[in-house]
């Protein structure tokens, strides 16, 4: 049943998005969606959070399953986060300044990997890119529809800086929407990141309820 429901959820999310990107929708999608919408609406949502949830945040509820995205380099988040204990915002440095967290510039990777683990194949691949003078073409994993206005900056400010939350544990905050990255190699989408997901969190944590706060 659980699996059933996951796939249902996923289908729903897709068709949700399929529709929302304002492209015409095939009749089939249309029917399947209306059925799914009903099914999902009556299913109780189950919350889970293996990460310690910061005390001041009511975690958003929802889960998502999707295949692992094949990246040009299989970047091991687990290694960097779990083992090396590198702070999220060390690499994703724009998160606190801009609406996007940003992929770290290749120079940043090379900063360490000129010397560290240069024998590893993945690093060698990275070095190739660096020498060619171009940055790898990563594939976007966490994506919101084009008509959604989401800023990392505001969320980080509210939940980390304003809340005086220890920045070294920032991963707990990021994890609420990005899942336990310390458990993954390349990033996987673990949360639906659909409107319901955001909505519930906004209600629980006093985020804006105005449509135009997030829709553009």
């Amino acid at each position, binding site marked *: 049943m659980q699996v059933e429901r996951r796939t249902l959820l996923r289908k729903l999310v897709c068709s949700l998005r399929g*529709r929302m990107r*304002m492209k*015409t*929708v095939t009749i089939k*999608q*249309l029917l399947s969606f*209306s059925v799914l*919408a*009903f099914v*999902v*609406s*009556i299913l109780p*949502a189950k919350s889970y959070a293996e990460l310690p949830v910061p005390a001041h945040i009511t975690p958003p509820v929802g889960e998502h399953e999707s295949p692992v995205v094949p990246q040009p380099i299989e970047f091991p988040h687990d290694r960097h986060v779990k083992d090396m204990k590198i702070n999220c915002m060390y690499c994703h440095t724009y998160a606190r300044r801009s609406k996007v967290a940003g992929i770290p510039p290749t120079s940043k990777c090379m900063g360490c990997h000129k010397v560290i683990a240069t024998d590893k194949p993945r690093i060698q691949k990275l070095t190739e890119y660096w020498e060619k003078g171009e940055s790898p073409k990563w594939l976007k994993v966490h994506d919101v529809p084009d008509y959604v206005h989401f800023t990392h900056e505001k969320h980080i400010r509210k939940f980390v800086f304003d809340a005086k939350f220890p920045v070294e544990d920032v991963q707990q905050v990021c994890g609420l929407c990005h899942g336990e990255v310390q458990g993954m190699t390349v990033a996987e989408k673990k949360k639906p990141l659909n*409107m*319901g997901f955001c*909505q*519930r969190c906004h*209600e629980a944590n006093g985020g804006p309820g105005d449509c135009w706060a997030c829709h553009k």
Partner: protein
Amino acid sequence: MSQVIEDKVIDEKLEWSRINADVIASMQAPRKAYWVTVFVCLTMFLCAIAAEIYQYKMGLGSAGLNNPHMWDMYIATFVFWIGMSHAGTLLSAILHIIHAQWRKPIYRFAEAMTTFSLMTAGFFPMIHLGRVWNLYWVLPYVSDRGIWPNFRSPLVWDAFAISTYLSSSALFLFIGMIPDMAILRDHTTGWRKKLYGILCLGWRGDDRQWRNFRRTYMLLACFLIPLAISVHSIVSSDFAMSIMPGWHVTTFPPYFVAGALYSGCAAIMTLFVCLRYFFRMEEYMTLNIMEKTCKLTFAIAMVWTYLNLIEFSSTWYGHNIYDKEVLIAKATGPYAAVFWTMIFCGCVVPFTLCFQKLRRHMPSMFVVSILLNLGMYVERWMIVAPTLAQAHSPHQWDVLWGSVIQWAIVFGSFGWFGLLFLVFVKLFPCVSMYEVKELCFHLKHEIEEEEKAKKHATTKAAGKAEEGSGRTAPGTPGLEGA
């Protein structure tokens, strides 16, 4: 001859078995004209499908809509079909409650018409919607996004009203058919037998079933009448709730209801003539019934005309300059021709119904009813278009006649309706057998009373006869079917 004989709507000597035979025959061997009509309707419908597919792919621009004319014939047609649906309710429900016997041979197809015109109307909001695949957003369903439709919007009311009306009128139609289903089950073979067998829900025609049946039928009728009124009032509020000149009119709800009944009756006349011809129903759909229908239509036509006058004069003597402009523009502006067509067809043509000769002459009645229908369609269009053409902002004034796509879809809707209807009458009895039997039974009884009265012509006896005619007859003719 006396009153009863005078306007008896059907020949009371009809054998009940013959009624069965005739009706069943009608369902098996109609005239050629039937098949021709079916074909025509089918082609019209297919054209519409093609047009709709194109429009769905390209966007509503292909319908020729533009900034002032955000709505056009789609909405007009929608209102027209909704209106049409009211006749069935009127004929079967209202007349049923007031015991108008003459409705019995014709109410069946009137009800069918109701259901099918509603089904046709239902399409138009979808055709006209920019992103039809989101149609369900107007329904209040529980979603994890926690957003609801806007309950203040007349369009949401429409959604409720139409779905309710459609379902209940369909139910009404079906319930009314159950005894006939039983008859058919017993008189047909093959797949038809199976079909009717299922549909008659094990009707045996015993007293209990008849009692429940009559109660249910009456109940539904009572429920349907206010519903029908409310539905068209809500449709009218699509316009009345806006601030647009020519739409923001207090008398719109009654006006729309009257118009609805009007167009419905006109439609009934048309179909009456057709069916009478297609299925050789001369004996059942008699001229007397036609006469009565015509009289009813005439009455409603006058009501409608009156309401028109009220609307015009209240605008004319009111001080809302925008309303006045629109009214004047209607009569003199680019749409003047259409407007006067509406006035002619809606207010003048009905007077032909005053002449008995014409009333009893089927071809001319056919023409007249078509004209009335036309008038009623144009009326709807004259509500939508001129207002948009000359609303508040002169900078955005524009005249629009719709594009090919739009016309195709509108015509196609008639094809679709025709198709549904014709298939129905081929599949199910367009004349309610058991009620016709009732009718004959009562008539016979009355006439016997007449005879008696004649024999010993005393005022007392005569008085008895009159009284007797009022009394409902004993016996349950439905049993004969079983």
